[in-house]
Structures are given as C-alpha cells and as structure tokens.
C-alpha cells in the first residue's frame, strides 16, 4: 500500500541510502531506533516535507515521490503537538477542512463530531496554550484524522505525556486503528507501544533498516544491540492487576505482589528494566515500593557489567558493575534484597 523503494536522502549532515519499506493496507507499523537513526526524517520524507535524492515512494500504486505534501493525503502528528497557537482548538481541528474550502456549517459539524470522540468538546473555544499535554495531543490527532488521511504518521506521539495519559491515549490510538482500519506508521521509544499497538515493527539505525518483523519476533530475537538494550526487559511477568488507589495497582503474580503506577487492571503484563533494580544486602527502605528478598542463582558477565539473577519466588534480573558485586560480596547462593520503584514497572496489555 505504501511502498518505499530504494530511497536515498541527503539533508545537511544526515543521509540515508537505499531504504526499502513496504507497509500493508491497514497495518500498524512501529518504527524503533536510537536518536539520530533518521526516523523523523523518514516520516517527513513520506509526508513530502523533504524530497529524496533517489528512489520512489508509492502510495496505492501511485508514484507520489514528487507530489507536494498538500496533495498526498498523508497525516502527520509530532511529539510536541504543533498546534497553531494563534487559533482555537476548533480552528486547529477544522484547519484542514477550511483549506479545502468546506463551508463553515459543515466544517463545524465535523469538528464537533470528532471532538466528541476524543472527549475534547468542552475545549473547542480554548487556545492550545491553556491545554494539558494529553488534551493537546488529542487535538493534534483529531486535526490530522479529520481529513481521513490514507496514511497517518505519528512521530513519538506519546512521549511527552505522563504514564497514565500515555496509557489512555495508547488505548485511543488502538481503538482508532481498529475502527478506521487506517494505515499507521508510528515512531516510539516505549516498548509498551510495541506490544499494545504494532502489527509489525521496523528497527532503524544510522539511516538504514536493520530488522523488521512481528513484535514477538523483534523482542525475542533482536538482531541489534539497540533492541536488546531498548527492550532491556529481562523482567517480564504476567499477572492480575487490582487498583488500590487512583493510578496505583497491585499486580498479583502467583503469591507475589508488585506495585505499579498505571490505570490498567485485570490481566496485564509488567516489565522492569534490569538497570532499574537495586541490589542490597540489607533491607532497603526508601520510597521505592517493591522490595523482595531472594537467593542469587547466577551471575552472568556481560562486559563491564554483570547480570545478577535472583530467585525471589519469581526470577528477577538486575545489572551491577563488577565493583558493586565485589563490594556487596555477592556470589551464587548469597541472600540479597532486590528493590525497584513502582514507577519503574512498565505495565501493558497485549
């Protein structure tokens, strides 16, 4: 549906050569990659902001390589919303229809309808500056969706938001995708997005694609270090989340309970990066809300660091420097405390 064929681009210091990518009709494609990999430039090139040096972009079989952005029918949403500050929310959302010469009554009706689906009807007369991050991003998404683009490009749309707003908006994106069947390309830094949203994942590095596949494939068999570091989630559990107070849940995993900051309840997955684990020989009292004791079963050397595997009833993995391991006197069989914050627990649903 969207075919990128041997695309090369040169932009100042940055370039990529011979990039190929095929996105199927209705697919939710997530693009991963470290900063500077060229993800945003790729999206902007698809949108028509930058013209490639070589190669072609085809949309539904039609060559759009030299079509200006306004005639491509491709929508774009940035991380920092880019709402026009001199217009109200309603004017922002209706901007595209106004450009197309849709008369005001029709336009207003369309704006109100989409605002209602995004729960921002009460904000229509306000200016973007006065909105919260989540409200601004809803407005930005509504603005680009109103034109019913054939492809929607999302450049880290959830990154500037707090955990809870991010979860809600992620659910909304999922619902939109399901309802509209729109083809979506989404750049992210959050691995929860992959599980929750992606049909397919594309990994970029230094202006090239290093891996593509289903989320499961990418997460289980990462070909690049970046992916391994990015997922870094040696600790992934499945459990049942129960809300104890607004925005905080207890996740029951067998007999263990992990506290996490989220609004998701019921059957969930929870991931904690091994770097976010703190190992101590004494009980660790702090604001960190999860602390368990267990026995070290394995120490795996990974260069400057080592992975410590601790059996606390569930298996938890932490990363420590060699000095710390020596200082704490850890060997296989040592009893230790392992602690992590409720905010370090990444909760997601498949």
């Amino acid at each position: 549906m969207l075919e990128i064929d041997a695309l090369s681009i040169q932009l100042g210091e940055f370039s990529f050569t011979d990039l190929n990518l095929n996105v199927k009709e209705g697919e939710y494609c997530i693009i991963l990659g470290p900063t500077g990999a060229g993800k945003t430039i790729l999206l902007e090139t698809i949108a028509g902001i930058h013209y490639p040096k070589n190669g072609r972009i085809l949309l539904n079989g039609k060559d759009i390589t030299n079509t200006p952005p306004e005639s491509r029918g491709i929508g774009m949403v940035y991380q920092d919303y880019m709402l026009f500050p001199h217009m109200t929310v309603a004017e922002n959302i209706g901007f595209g229809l106004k450009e197309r010469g849709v008369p005001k009554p029709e336009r207003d009706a369309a704006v109100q309808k989409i605002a209602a689906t995004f729960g921002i009807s009460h904000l229509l007369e306000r200016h973007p500056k006065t909105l919260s991050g989540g409200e601004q991003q809803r407005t930005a998404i509504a603005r680009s969706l109103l034109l019913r683009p054939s492809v929607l490009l999302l450049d880290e749309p959830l990154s500037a938001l707090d955990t809870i707003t991010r979860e809600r908006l992620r659910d909304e994106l999922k619902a939109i995708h399901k309802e509209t069947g729109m083809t979506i390309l989404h750049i992210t830094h959050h691995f929860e997005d992959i599980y929750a949203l992606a049909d397919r994942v594309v990994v970029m590095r230094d202006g090239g694609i290093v891996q593509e596949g289903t989320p499961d494939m990418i997460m289980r068999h990462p070909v690049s270090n970046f992916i391994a570091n990015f997922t870094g989630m040696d600790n992934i559990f499945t459990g049942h989340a129960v809300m104890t107070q607004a925005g905080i849940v207890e996740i029951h995993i067998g007999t263990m309970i992990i506290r996490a900051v989220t609004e998701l309840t019921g059957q969930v997955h929870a991931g904690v990066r091994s770097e976010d684990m703190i190992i101590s020989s004494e009980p660790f009292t702090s604001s960190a809300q999860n602390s368990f004791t267990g026995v070290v079963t394995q120490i795996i050397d990974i260069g400057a660091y080592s992975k410590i595997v601790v059996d606390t009833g569930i298996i938890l993995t932490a990363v420590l420097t060699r000095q710390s391991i020596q200082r704490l006197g850890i060997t296989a069989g040592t009893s230790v405390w392992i602690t992590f914050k409720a905010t370090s627990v990444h909760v997601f649903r498949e």
Partner: protein
Amino acid sequence: MVQRRLPTFFQAVCIGITLIAVIILIAVFLGLILFSSPEALIASFLSDEIWYAIKLSIITAVISTLICLIIAVPIAYSMTRFSFFGKQWVNVLLNLPLSLPPLVAGVALLIFLSPVTSPVGQFFTGLGIYVVYTPMAIIIAQVFVNAPYMVRIARSTFAMISPRYEHVARTLGCSEFGAFQKITLPMAKNGLIGGIIITWSKAMGEFGAVLMLAGAIAMKTETLPIALFLNMSTGDLDMAIAAALILLIISGTALILFEYFGKDVGDVYA
C-alpha cells in the same frame, strides 16, 4: 526576620557605578528639557520649519520602514529556513551595514546614485528621476542603513518558530506560501511589530547617511535631525532643542513599545 548585610566591596562598586550612570543620564536629559523657556519651546514647536521637519521625517520614516519590512521578511525567511551555497558570506554582507558608520553608507550611496559619478545615476536622470538631494534620497538612505536591523529582528523571530508548524500545515492542505502566510507570519506578528517600531524610530533619527545622500537643504530635505543640525549651526538654540526633544520623545516611546511587544517574542515556538 531577614537580616540585612552590608554589601561587599565588589557589590558596592558595581552598584555605585550603576547609580552614577543613572544620575548622569537623568541630569543630561533634564538639562536638555529645561534649557529653553517653555514659551520659546512652544513657539519653536509651532514654527513652519519644525512642522515641515516633523512631517517630512514621519512620511519618509513610514515609507522606508514599510520598504524595510518588505525586503527583510523574505531575506530573514531564507536565512532561517533554507541552506544555500555561500550562505555565511551572504550573512556577513547582510550584517556589514550594522557596523558601518552611516556616513560611509551615505557616501557609497551618493557615488552609486549620483548622475555625475555613476551610470546608474545617469540612467535614472535619463528617465527624469532625480534621486540625489531629494526626499526620495532620504528614504533610500534610511532603507539602506536600517534594513539590516529589520532583517536581524525578523530572523531571530522566524528562528524561534519551529518549521514543523509549517510541515503540519502542509500535510493539512496548505501550499508552501499558504503555510507561511497562515501559520508562520501570524506567529511572528509580535516580533515583526517590534522590528517595525525599532526600524521606524531609527529612521526618524537617521542623520549621517541622509546628510550625504540628501544633503541638508532647509525646507526641502530637512528631517528632524537635519533641522537640529542646521539650527545648531546657525545658533537657533530653541529650534534645535525643539527638534532634539521630539527625537527624544520618539526614542523613549519606541523603546517602551518595543519592550511591550518584545516580551512576547520570548515565547519560543520551537
């Protein structure tokens, strides 16, 4: 209770020098304001010569400011949004008039436009257009000296607006020019207004370049600064001071207005 400590020696020196500067500034301006008797000043304000100078200054400054704006916006936009070969040299050239004494700019313009010295001048004279020593020369001199300031302010204004606003506008159906005109320009409004105020007030006070290109001809190319100069040289102090006071008021007002519009320029739309 907050305990007040004596300032350190270093603090005392810094504050002391600031205080002395403030006192000197007030004394100098008060001296100018109080020198002439009010009756003499009012008589001068109402004289034909000062009226002519005010009118000529305002008209030439308004026209030259508009021309500066029309030139500066596209230049500033290309310097912030596009990259092209030799951009840093263009940058130096554009900024050169900022550090150049206006007298030098005036001489250069005179040689470039005079029918005696230049084919360009002869060309205009051939068309029946006399540039040098006319009010048109005042406008040309003001534009030449002030356009770089307008470019600078417009540039920093555009630089604060992320190009992504335009990118989004394009995907929403705007042409390139449409995105500039409907998104970037309204967002740059306050910065540009600030630039217009500064440029206009500088044009009102421009002397060196105007003197060279338009001459100091009483009741013909006599702007306020020229009126000040002519009356000083003939010893008409009251007239000279009247012109000076008007220029002082214009500068002060412009500065206050610029502060007012300038505060919004600080909103970074990056």
